């Protein structure tokens, strides 16, 4: 019976829960009692008694206060870890700083990109019931394709309001530009609009003074923004004061002041004018014509409105109500307000919008940069581990388990991550003003302290700390105690190849980014420098404004009466501009094809226009004063038009427009009137002497100032109530690609940062390699190797990395950038140059980061390397 044993399970259970200092005496008593019980009552009962007693021992004074003691223990250990990591940081300052700055750069990038994206996504969300507000946009069938516009006509909006009772509120906005006149001041403002009186019912822009419902109800009433009030009156309490907008010819009375529209609104207006005032100044035809797309139309729909069924009813509505527009050539559709900023890129938007694809691209770039920074950390910490092998060995000898070591190195990585995050946070705050200016944003400081951002940072901290720390801690903790103390050199093949793979990934991303940047840049250059088909150099555009059109010819004569003014020509269109005037037609020898519903654009010009822009006539002649009949019987078409008509011999053939037949007298070579975002449309040029809005003057580049002075003087003789304005056509052309330019700049900056981080990593690695091989190099040197041999030895590996990385990066970049380029109608071919540039610059970068270290070790006295044993 003496072989009966107390139940093991309960014994260890007791050991687990009880205070260590009580265990000896209690267990002793238990065992003794068990032995006795076995003798008295038998093994079974004794065991039950044992178990029962163990359970009964679970008392407050016996159970160990598990939380307290354990924490105390770990706390001390953690303090030790912290102390050691700070010491290591100080001891290997350059390594640590490289490591840290890589992480900081990565975090700063990500933080700023996050802020940017967050801001982009916040557009228009401040409106109450924004999810029920839609813009009603229109599309026209052009050349067999729907061409969508953000605009609509006043009349169409009115008919929608009366025909669809799902519409709760409908508001029209007609934006204009003009001079604001107040006292002596006469300043051009671009953010003026006529709006419906329920503007503030639909949009939640806050009013400082004035009643939301009635503030825009009445003749001559206007609501101005705070900044306009300050600009003209020096005060915001200005209700009742008056000012004049050039378009109205009436005094406007301020009936309310609103806060400036927030930056994350997809449109910004400073001066809102009541609908009754518009009645007085706008031509009556604007209200009658369904084709005069003067308005942006926004509607708040009733809660139960089903948008898709309404859209299904639109074609019927169009056929029934909209005069000559039919469901075949005209389409109406809803755009949710919240989607407009990122997803809408229609013609005639109120302001250029953001792009969803940019959001995706920047998110990717942010992720990549963070990834590179993490790789850096992993690489550098693992590489540095050699120096800490002895520490690891010592800790193991002193009883550290693997989990302790993993904890230690994880903690170290968390400390570094935290430090990096903290510095990155401060740094981002510091450069926020510059960033705002650059990204054209107005992100406030307070955004940094919003819940979501701080939460995101906390998550990033844990996540990145874990990612960056897990691999080094795994490798470091795996060292064998004995070997590492003996000075065993770190040569774990698997972790080395892991690090090599990581470097290749880094190089791949960097090379891909360089190549992508070059491609983006190339496309931008292409857009900016593509030959437009005309000579736009030294041509200035002058709006005719209120000039009496009958006097235009004499203005041109007088203006060109100066040696520096080489010529003038006029058009109803601005170059570059958006030809929104299009027409249906019938034409000689062309079957009327109702299905295709083809149309052409119309541009009105004067006699001298083609000469002035130096457009090339391919066939026939230009408009000429020698043929008076040109005035209303002749047209010139462009190549695209001739191609659409299928005319081989266009000269002399007729085109029917509005019941009258016009003779084709010439074919002009295709040239870009519009931006390169749009294809050159088939265009008919018509001669006119009345419907002209812009005149263009070619001036002598060497005598710019006198030419402009002369033009201003002459202009002043013909236009007395407006100021002389002009712009260079070349500047206007560049202005069209502002968005692309910005995109390119942003891309460049991030690429530079990515490269910087990657080269920090490369530098760290070469330093490590040099240290690893210092003895080898010493011996080689002693045996007669030259400096060049040694440098090659050290840098060769990186050349291989670069090769592999390029091999992966090039096809990937080619594919992705090809997709990106598909958004452009006119695009450059990618070619091989971007890849050559990427390859050369990455070689240069890798070489310049490695050469210094390798040279230094190659030049060193071999004795230094060999003597240390």
């Amino acid at each position, binding site marked *: 019976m003496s072989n009966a044993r107390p139940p093991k399970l309960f014994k260890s259970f007791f050991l687990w829960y009880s205070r260590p200092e*009580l265990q*000896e*005496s*209690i*267990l*002793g*008593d*238990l*065992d*003794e*009692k068990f*032995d*006795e019980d076995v003798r008295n009552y038998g093994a079974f009962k004794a065991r039950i008694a044992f178990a*029962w*007693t163990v359970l*009964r*021992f679970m*008392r407050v*004074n*016996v159970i160990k206060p598990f939380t307290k003691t354990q924490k105390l223990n770990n706390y001390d250990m953690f303090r030790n870890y912290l102390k050691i990591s700070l010491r290591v940081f100080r001891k290997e300052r350059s390594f640590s700083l490289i490591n840290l700055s890589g992480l900081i750069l990565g975090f700063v990038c990500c933080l700023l990109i996050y802020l940017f994206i967050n801001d982009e996504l916040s557009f228009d969300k401040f409106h109450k019931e924004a999810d029920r507000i839609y813009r009603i946009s229109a599309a026209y069938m052009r050349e067999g394709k729907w061409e969508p516009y953000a605009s609509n006509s006043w009349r169409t909006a009115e008919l929608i309001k009366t025909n669809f009772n799902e519409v709760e509120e409908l508001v029209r906005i007609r934006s204009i530009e003009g001079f604001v006149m107040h006292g002596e001041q006469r300043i051009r403002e671009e953010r003026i609009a006529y709006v419906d009186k329920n503007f503030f019912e639909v949009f939640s822009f806050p009013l400082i003074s004035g009643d939301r419902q009635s503030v825009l109800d009445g003749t001559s009433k206007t609501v101005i923004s705070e900044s306009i009030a300050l600009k003209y009156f020096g005060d915001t309490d200005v209700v009742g004061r008056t000012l004049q907008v050039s378009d109205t010819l009436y005094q406007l009375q301020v009936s309310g002041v609103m806060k400036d529209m927030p930056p994350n609104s997809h449109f910004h207006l400073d001066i809102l004018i009541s609908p009754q005032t518009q009645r007085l100044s706008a031509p009556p035809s604007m209200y009658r014509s369904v084709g005069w797309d003067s308005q942006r139309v926004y509607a708040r729909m009733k809660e139960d409105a089903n948008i898709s069924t309404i859209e299904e009813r639109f074609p019927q509505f169009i056929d029934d109500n909209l005069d000559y527009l039919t469901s075949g050539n005209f389409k109406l559709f809803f755009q949710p307000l919240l989607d407009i900023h990122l997803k809408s890129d229609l013609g005639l938007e109120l302001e250029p919008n953001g792009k969803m694809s940019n959001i995706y691209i920047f998110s990717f770039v942010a992720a990549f940069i963070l990834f590179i920074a993490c790789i850096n950390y992993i690489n550098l910490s693992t590489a540095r581990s050699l120096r800490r092998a002895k520490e690891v060995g010592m800790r193991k000898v002193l009883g550290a388990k693997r989990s302790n070591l993993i904890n230690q190195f994880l903690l170290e990585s968390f400390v570094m991550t935290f430090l990096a995050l903290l510095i990155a946070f401060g740094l981002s705050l510091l450069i926020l003003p510059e960033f705002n200016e650059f990204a054209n944003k107005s992100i406030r400081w307070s955004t940094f302290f919003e819940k979501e951002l701080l939460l995101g940072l906390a998550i990033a901290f844990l996540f990145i700390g874990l990612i960056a720390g897990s691999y080094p801690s795994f490798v470091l903790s795996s060292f064998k105690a004995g070997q590492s103390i003996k000075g065993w050199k770190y040569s774990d093949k698997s972790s080395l190849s892991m690090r090599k793979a990581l470097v290749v990934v880094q190089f791949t991303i960097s090379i891909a980014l360089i190549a992508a940047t070059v491609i983006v840049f190339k496309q931008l250059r292409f857009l900016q420098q593509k030959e437009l088909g005309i000579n736009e150099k030294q041509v200035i555009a002058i709006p005719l404004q209120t000039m009496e059109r009958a006097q235009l010819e004499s203005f041109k004569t007088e203006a060109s009466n100066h040696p520096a003014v080489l010529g003038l020509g006029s058009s109803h269109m601005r170059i570059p501009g958006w030809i929104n005037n299009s027409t249906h037609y019938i034409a000689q020898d062309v079957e009327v094809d109702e299905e295709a519903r083809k149309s052409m654009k119309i541009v009105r010009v004067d006699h001298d226009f083609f000469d002035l822009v130096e457009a090339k006539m391919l066939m026939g002649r230009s408009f000429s004063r020698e043929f008076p009949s040109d005035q209303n019987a002749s047209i010139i078409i462009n190549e695209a038009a001739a191609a659409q008509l299928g005319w081989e011999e266009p000269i002399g053939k007729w085109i029917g427009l509005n019941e009258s037949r016009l003779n084709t007298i010439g074919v002009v070579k295709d040239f870009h009137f519009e931006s390169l975002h749009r294809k050159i449309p088939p265009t008919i040029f018509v001669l006119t002497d009345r419907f002209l809005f812009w005149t263009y003057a070619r001036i002598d580049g060497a005598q710019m100032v006198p030419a402009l002075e002369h033009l201003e003087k002459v202009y002043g003789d013909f236009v007395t109530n407006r100021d002389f304005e002009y712009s260079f056509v070349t500047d206007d052309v560049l202005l069209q690609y502002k968005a692309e330019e910005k995109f390119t700049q942003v891309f460049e900056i991030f690429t530079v940062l990515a490269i910087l981080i990657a080269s920090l990593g490369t530098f760290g690695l070469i330093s490590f390699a040099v240290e690893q091989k210092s003895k080898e190099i010493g011996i080689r040197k002693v045996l007669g190797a030259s400096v060049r041999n040694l440098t090659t030895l050290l840098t060769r590996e990186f050349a291989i990395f670069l090769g592999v990385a390029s091999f992966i990066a090039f096809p990937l970049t080619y594919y992705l950038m090809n997709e990106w380029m598909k958004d452009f109608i006119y695009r450059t071919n990618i070619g091989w140059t971007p890849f050559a540039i990427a390859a050369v610059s990455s070689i240069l970068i890798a070489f310049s980061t490695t050469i210094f270290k390798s040279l230094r070790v190659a030049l060193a006295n071999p004795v230094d390397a060999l003597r240390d044993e």
Partner: protein
Amino acid sequence: MGRTNFLGEFEELILTLVLILDEDAYGNTILTAMKEHRGRVVNLSTVHVTLYRLEKKGYLESHYAGATKKRGGRRKRYFRITNAGKALLREMKEARIQLWKLTPQLSTEP
């Protein structure tokens, strides 16, 4: 006089048993003695916890000694009554006698 000067009935019993067992007082012997002298069966844990409490109050002191094979080589924790413990027991005894003296004497003694 505060909480430390107060002993519960069970505490008093244990304290007395430790006094009785003199040099041989530890968990198991106390348990056996209780069963023997008072016919009272309690759990070992109750005894232990009470011992600790009394030690904390200063009426007992303990030391480790006497490992046996039966105990798996573990030492016993012997308890010994302190002077304070003895004084308290005496005091309690006298207090009880004092009280008994105040009870009405039974009229007829056999």
